[in-house]
């Protein structure tokens, strides 16, 4: 299974975050995961370039997207309420925007021969969880889709789900598998 979700969904050129489109409220990030890479086949150099650099790129892309939605995010301001655990909407019930991250489902769930890819997916998944918590106070929502690219009608399903998430002001930190049941009956990460 080639992990070309990024190509499928027209991933942003995340290696150059400044090349991202100008401020819009809702973003979809399809970070290019390292291609089906097992730890047994990955030397130390590959771990740094394929995994470490990919995760760093993802951090910077998310930094950029969050700051495009709310410039307060970067650099963070000291007067942001550190104990904020209130709603993720403003008084009008609106969010400031959302980020939807798309990851390959099989590698996220775990698959023999994909350990480095899974490390990447696990890293991004936890990063998304942290961002869902951190960005609440800026009314920014962060959700993650785990997609099986062989799912029948996958492009339409992802589009439908992404569109729905954009108009769901109270929904953040959710992880949705669009994967023909690949996650059913197993412990999800």
């Amino acid at each position: 299974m080639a992990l070309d979700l990024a190509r499928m969904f027209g991933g942003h050129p995340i290696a150059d975050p400044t090349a991202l489109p100008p401020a819009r409220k809702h973003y979809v990030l399809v970070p290019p995961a390292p291609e089906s890479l097992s730890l047994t086949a990955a030397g130390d150099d590959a771990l740094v370039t394929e995994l470490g650099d990919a995760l760093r790129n993802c951090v910077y892309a998310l930094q950029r997207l969050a700051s495009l939605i709310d410039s307060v995010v970067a650099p963070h301001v000291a007067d942001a309420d550190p104990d904020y655990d209130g709603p993720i909407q403003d008084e009008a019930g609106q969010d400031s925007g959302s980020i939807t991250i798309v990851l390959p489902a099989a590698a996220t769930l775990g698959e023999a021969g994909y350990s480095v890819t899974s490390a990447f997916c696990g890293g991004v998944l936890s990063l998304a969880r942290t961002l869902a918590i951190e960005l609440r106070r800026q009314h920014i929502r962060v959700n993650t889709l785990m997609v099986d690219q062989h799912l029948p009608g996958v492009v339409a399903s992802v589009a439908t789900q992404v569109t729905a998430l954009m108009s769901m002001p109270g929904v953040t930190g959710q992880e949705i598998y669009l994967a023909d049941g690949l996650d059913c009956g197993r412990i999800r990460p």
Partner: protein
Amino acid sequence: MSAPVAPVAIVTGAGGAIGAAIATRLAEAGHLVVAADLDQVGAAATRAGITTGGGRADACRLDVGDQASRAELVAGVLDRHGRIDVLVNCAGILRDARIGDLTEQTLLPTLAVNLIGPLSLARQVIDPMTSEGGGSIINIASRAWLGIFGSASYSMTKGALVGVTRSLALELGPVGIRVNAIAPGYVQTPMSASLPPQVVRRSVNATPLRRAGNPDDVARLATELAHPQSFVTGQVIAVCGGRTIGQPGMAEGTAS
């Protein structure tokens, strides 16, 4: 070495609080423990504690973020002890930063020490473990893998450890190598000593068992996961006093 064929366990970060407890418990369970740490004094103290208690141990300097140092550790252990049965990836660093504040200064060392190093060591022990008919790799993750305020890169690396744990367990199960992760909640150690007291109080109050974890809580589970007859693999097990089923910790300073 007089007594033959003790299983050999490498514990990284064994000069630290949790690593020392794990090393000590594994030695009690009959392992020859290699205590590896950047902090040579700490590693030597762990070794001394084990040997005065009648256990078998060796101490090594390791910079887990450094390729040559990792290779040297594995080669040295195979050279001196002939086998590797258990790897505990416990060395780790906690550099707090919210997403907006993350820079290379935080990201690079966090990735190197918490992720690249542990994965590289895991790769390097696969062959030796396979020749012994199996083994146990234990990655010390953190509650932070579920998301935590203010530690974006830390939680990312711990989540990546969980990810690799699952796929490696699927891949290596057939050759008898088990791979698991432990996700401790707040544990009283030098690493967490930097947290302000009100943060600690808040954390304990949000813990159903109403206490902080101690290093031995983690060590007892690690010893079970290291047991050659264990039927557990691919799991991430929380040692958190129930913290992770309760309050989500949306606020700053609920870290660790």
